[in-house]
């Protein structure tokens, strides 16, 4: 090589490789993060199940219709929600979460019924109305 010729760039030099690889690596991390988020969301959706409460036995209550309960994972546990009444609780297993919700629905119903109507704010009054449409004491 003559001293007048410009130095030829080595395409495999450390600097060149780094310049080409680093953006690709950054893009890959972005894609990987998106895949992780999609996977987590998918897991949440797959694990979300609808289980009806069909009886309140042996409690002295009858159901006018089944209570739809949505079970969603949260960490190592499960949240059970009766969305119409906006009442939720949790449990270590899906079964425990539903069992806990069954008892909380009755606790809430009994508490709200024990209060004078004028002592309930808009949301508790609405919750009591929803609960009355689903269950009654026998």
């Amino acid at each position: 090589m003559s001293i007048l010729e410009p130095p030829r760039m080595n395409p495999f030099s450390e600097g060149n490789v780094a310049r080409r690889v680093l953006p690709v690596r950054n893009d890959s991390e972005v894609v990987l993060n998106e895949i992780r988020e999609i996977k987590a969301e998918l897991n949440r959706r797959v694990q979300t199940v609808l289980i009806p409460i069909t009886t309140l036995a042996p409690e002295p209550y009858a159901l006018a219709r089944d209570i739809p309960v949505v079970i969603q994972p949260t960490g190592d546990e499960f949240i059970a929600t009766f969305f119409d009444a906006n009442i939720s609780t949790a449990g270590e297993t899906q079964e425990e979460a539903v069992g806990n919700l069954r008892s909380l629905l009755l606790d809430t119903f009994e508490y709200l019924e024990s209060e004078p109507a004028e002592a309930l704010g808009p949301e508790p009054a609405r919750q009591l109305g929803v609960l009355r449409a689903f269950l009654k004491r026998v």
Partner: protein
Amino acid sequence: MLTKDHAEAIARKLKAVIISGRKHDLAAVKYNGKTIAQFGIRRGSRRDQAHDYIPGQIHVTRQQATLLAQCPMSFEEWITVMRQKGHIAT
């Protein structure tokens, strides 16, 4: 994750009346003599029991519930949020 400690701290912060239930202690939050929200606190000795459902029961975000439990959000600030959301008549 909101734990049982958080749930109890929120109940204290909101001056909730605690009613003993079947498997929960029911925390009833009252303002001017009216119940405006209630939530269940699970029984059991495990302090790390999940109570992630509480924000929805007291009409705040998870972040606001954490602020209530950890102190930065006061009872009065929560009442302001409830007024804004129509859970307390203005």
